[in-house]
């Protein structure tokens, strides 16, 4: 009950502040006067009283890859805008009125930062970081790490780790079977054709020594293709671009190179 009493007093105090502030604000706008120090003081006080609201909101956007301090700063800009526009006659609490303005300001900031591109990238990065940390911790611990251990290691939340692992897939916006528009190639290909993934045929090549020996039978260009394709997981399309040949040609060369390698390794 004491809480509620406190809240009621806070509300009344804010209202009184707004009454004085709005009275001055209107006087200035009607008479084209410049604001005096009293006006500024009231505005500042209203801002200070509501900084917790800005903080409350900014914290909720802090997992989207921008520093919290920056978000609080742009959120405060939104708060000031709301203070300058708020009208007691609206019959809503200032908090209700200010929230969309503050959130709007924070989201605009993200947009200006090209955030729509950054979020998937950040997820992917975290996803990669999880994989790397997982390998590293597996070695040092001698067992597979727990999510808690990964979270500590990467200074992230456990839920972030879990999300990064899952969302790598949830945000995979294109189906692998979707057709991609080939630039010049007449035949359309699906995304699955171009993704760099390990080839089953390559399981033969696990033994590095064997592999090095086998590689000698390849031509320079074949070696480059095999290297890019299977060690760097570069797509055929990308390899084609780098070598300035068609993707079909890369595909043929790759098939030929793998045949050669299989033949050598089967010996």
């Amino acid at each position, binding site marked *: 009950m004491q*809480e509620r009493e*406190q*809240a*009621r007093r*806070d*509300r009344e105090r*804010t209202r009184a502040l707004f009454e004085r502030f709005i009275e001055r604000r209107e006087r200035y706008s009607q008479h084209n006067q410049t604001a005096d120090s009293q006006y500024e003081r009231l505005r500042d006080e209203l801002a200070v009283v509501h900084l*917790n*609201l800005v903080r*409350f*909101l900014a914290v*909720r*956007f802090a997992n*989207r890859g921008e520093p919290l301090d920056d978000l609080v700063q742009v959120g405060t800009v939104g708060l000031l805008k709301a203070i300058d526009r708020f009208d007691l006659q609206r019959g809503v*609490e*200032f*908090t*209700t009125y200010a*929230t*969309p303005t503050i*959130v*709007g300001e924070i*989201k605009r900031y*993200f*947009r200006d930062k090209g*955030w*729509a591109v950054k*979020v*998937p990238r950040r997820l992917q990065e975290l996803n990669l970081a999880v994989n790397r940390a997982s390998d590293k911790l597996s070695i040092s611990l001698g067992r597979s790490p727990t999510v808690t251990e990964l979270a500590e290691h990467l200074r992230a939340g*456990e*839920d972030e780790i*879990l*999300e990064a692992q*899952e*969302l790598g897939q*949830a*945000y995979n*916006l*294109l*189906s692998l079977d*979707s057709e991609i528009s080939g630039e010049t190639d007449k035949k359309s290909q699906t995304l699955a054709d171009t993704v760099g993934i390990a080839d089953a045929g390559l399981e033969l090549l696990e033994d590095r020594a064997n592999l090095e020996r086998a590689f000698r039978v390849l031509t320079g260009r074949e070696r480059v293709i095999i290297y890019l394709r299977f060690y760097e997981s570069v797509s055929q399309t990308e390899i084609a671009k780098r070598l300035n040949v068609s993707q079909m040609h890369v595909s043929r060369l790759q098939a030929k190179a793998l045949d050669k390698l299989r033949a050598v390794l089967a010996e």
Partner: protein
Amino acid sequence: MNSAVERSHNELVEPRIPSRPEWVALARLAAATVANRLRFSIEEIEDVKLAVAEACTAVIQHEGHGEFIDLTCEALSDLLRIRVRDSGRHGVARAQAPNMNFDEARIAGLGVFLIRTLMDEVSYDVSPQGTDLVMLKRLTGVTDH
């Protein structure tokens, strides 16, 4: 290329999760997955996740909340509908009013303001049966931001 996924059925996910903070991530993920099926933009999906997290937090912080949260995420033709319900409860709920004091006990009330900002329509009901919040987000088809 980014046309909506073919959906011959409405998609519905309805998990029941323990009413505890460590399960909120699952609620976020369920909502994000359904939102993604509707081809919401990445920003909209983040907003949906945030709204769901706030709603769950509101339930969890509600005095005398139940043992579970019943979450319903539904992809309708051009609409995402999410319902967050307090369930498995005992005791009597206390009606809460959003207000100006920002200590932890009141965060839940503020969360509702935030949800209103993030979603298109929000209705909620706090009764002795607990919190029951329904939020809708429409697919605008415009992703020019």
